């Protein structure tokens, strides 16, 4: 992530912007999906599960943001977030459809 | 909160002294390994004791909050005093420890 001394090339700026977008929007989606998963999977009452899911969501968000800036390239940032979102969406979907009679 | 604060502050001073760099700054000489060990033990014990003092006085909910507040404040106070008044910092710890039985009596 180190920049070269001197003029920062456009490609660098684009990469940074890409990571920021992945972190802000991808991270939000990940957090929302994470909270939904928790809400659907926790064995407590509906209200308790909802509150717990929401409270924990920000940790998901944090982890997504850290990943987006720690990984080696902007592509990896998107790949990681998208992959995690997919997994969480699958889990949430399964939990949702199996819960309904 | 006073007892917890006195114990906390003394505990932090002990932990501070248990570090080579601060020990030599404050007391002019390096500490032996044994002394460092006992300072560390003493420091942590004092912190633990201060937690007990806080919880005993105000229950777990409020006591824990008060302990955290006292913890942060005493650490800030010590770090601010160290560069400007190292002697004062040490003396305060000593006086605090001496005064703590009085504070304990006042509390219970």
């Amino acid at each position: 992530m180190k920049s070269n001394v001197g003029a920062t090339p456009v490609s660098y700026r684009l990469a940074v912007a890409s990571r920021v977008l992945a972190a802000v929007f991808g991270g939000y989606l990940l957090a929302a999906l994470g909270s939904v998963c928790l809400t659907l999977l926790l064995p407590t009452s509906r209200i308790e599960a909802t509150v717990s899911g929401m409270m924990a969501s920000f940790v998901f968000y944090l982890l997504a943001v850290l990943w987006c800036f720690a990984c080696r390239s902007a592509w990896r940032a998107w790949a990681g977030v998208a992959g995690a979102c997919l997994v969480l969406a699958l889990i949430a979907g399964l939990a949702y459809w199996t819960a309904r009679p | 909160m006073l007892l917890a604060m006195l114990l906390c502050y003394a505990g932090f001073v002990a932990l501070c002294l248990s570090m080579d760099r601060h020990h030599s700054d404050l007391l002019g000489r390096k500490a032996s390994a044994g002394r460092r060990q006992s300072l560390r033990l003493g420091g942590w014990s004092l912190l633990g004791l201060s937690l007990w003092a806080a919880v005993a006085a105000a229950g777990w909910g409020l006591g824990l909050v008060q302990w955290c507040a006292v913890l942060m404040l005493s650490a800030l106070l010590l770090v601010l005093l160290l560069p400007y008044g190292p002697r004062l910092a040490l003396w305060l710890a000593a006086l605090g420890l001496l005064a703590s039985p009085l504070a304990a009596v006042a509390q219970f």
Partner: protein
Amino acid sequence: MKEGFRQSMAWLHTWSGLVLGWLLFAIFLTGTLAYFKAEISHWMQPEVPARAVSTDSSLALAQGYLQQHASGAGRWFINLPDAREPALSVMWQGPVKPGERGAFMEKLLDPATGSEIQARETRGGEFFYRFHFQLQMPHPWGRWLATGAAMVMFVALISGIITHKKIFKDFFTFRPHKGQRSWLDGHNALGVLVLPFHLMITYSSLVIFMSMVMPASILTAYNGDTRAFFNEAFPGTNNAPAAGKPGVLMPMGPMVEQARQQWSGGRIGRIAVNNPGDENASVNVFRHSGDRVVHDFGSVISFNGVTGQLLRVSPEQSLPAAIAGSFYGLHMGVFAGPVLRWLYFICGLAGTAMIGTGLVIWLGKRQLKHAKSGVMPFELRLVEVLNIASMSGLVVAVAAFFWANRLLPVSVAERADWEVNSFFMVWALSLLHAAVRRGRRAWVEQLGLAALLFAAVPLLDLLTSPAGLVTSDWMLAGFDLTCLGSGVFLAWAAWKMQHPSHTRPSPQPRAERLRSLALKNEVN
């Protein structure tokens, strides 16, 4: 890879800290002031008497007043006086038409006589409280921005912790008179030593608005019916609708007494009466949130307003609700007594200073690189101007708010709005001033002005307070003294800015030089 991780976290910390730092500084400073919002409001309405009160008589007076002036209202609210807020406050909402929110009216009553208090119109400390999470923006954008800033603060805190390699070794380290090194030591000390508070305040601010910013769980679990969620989470709002037939409200004294017994001597917070003139009137008695650390959103006892019958006692909090309540309660600090409240204030100032020192360091490090050329590139000049305006400018604006409160005539129309306008106008002027004056000079002038304004507050109070010179009101005295102290601190800061102490020249042995080089690389 480990080295790369720390460095990327350092990059994240540096840039997230800068971009949101100016806003976060404002949020932290106003939020910190909000811990004393009752005291600030008291100073800004010196006409309101501060005297010992009994809740029972004030309740009867409040009920009488509302019966007289707000009999057609849809809801009444009564806030009984307590140690920090000596006035009896009543509020009512106009009749609720379907799909519309009735307008709210609020009045302050003298708790001894029940008559309206003729106090100057002002937002008081509530202004700082509201600003720190609404940012003077239309609903709900301010809250979204503030919560977004809180998320960035969370990221900055965690990335800062990860980056701070010597977090334990440097725990007690603070080396003054060493230029940039001292600023960094200070930033680290304020961050690490007060870390429990910073983490708590940041995460709790996210939890407080979580149902607004992260509604996915609610929508999924309740199939889009958010009303059902809120009714379950806040049972005090779940009341019987109006029957349309008139009914006479019983005196609320016995109901409140019954509630107090249920809570084994707990304090009453606020009382909400729904549909007061109706047969189905209900009285909700809420517990004072200062009774416990963990805020209980659902802690309410409901009565039938006409018969006085106990309808419902809210159940014990579930664990997740207690956790959420802990976040809320810890953030708001209502439970805090005087000593603890001051500690909250100090911690808040530490957080504010942590952000401020970070912004100064960000600029200082890059300024060094351009020191030789003498010309600052536009981006750095922009950061410098924003630093000055968002920090010293904001402080001057706060002082201006207090001065406006005393200088604006009491009978001026829209007085409260004009006090707020003064705050923003002065803040905007400080931005202009910072843009026009050369760096250091702008700092000195703004800090100096702030120092003058704050230090003169006791004099201002003396000259403009209706009570006159001698008053045993220690709340007012406390406010005056704190302002004086702030003025002294700001004067010191201005002086330091004008006469920067050059770093103590110390012989730099080779080891030291190598270490400082390594330091530069690490911090970068």
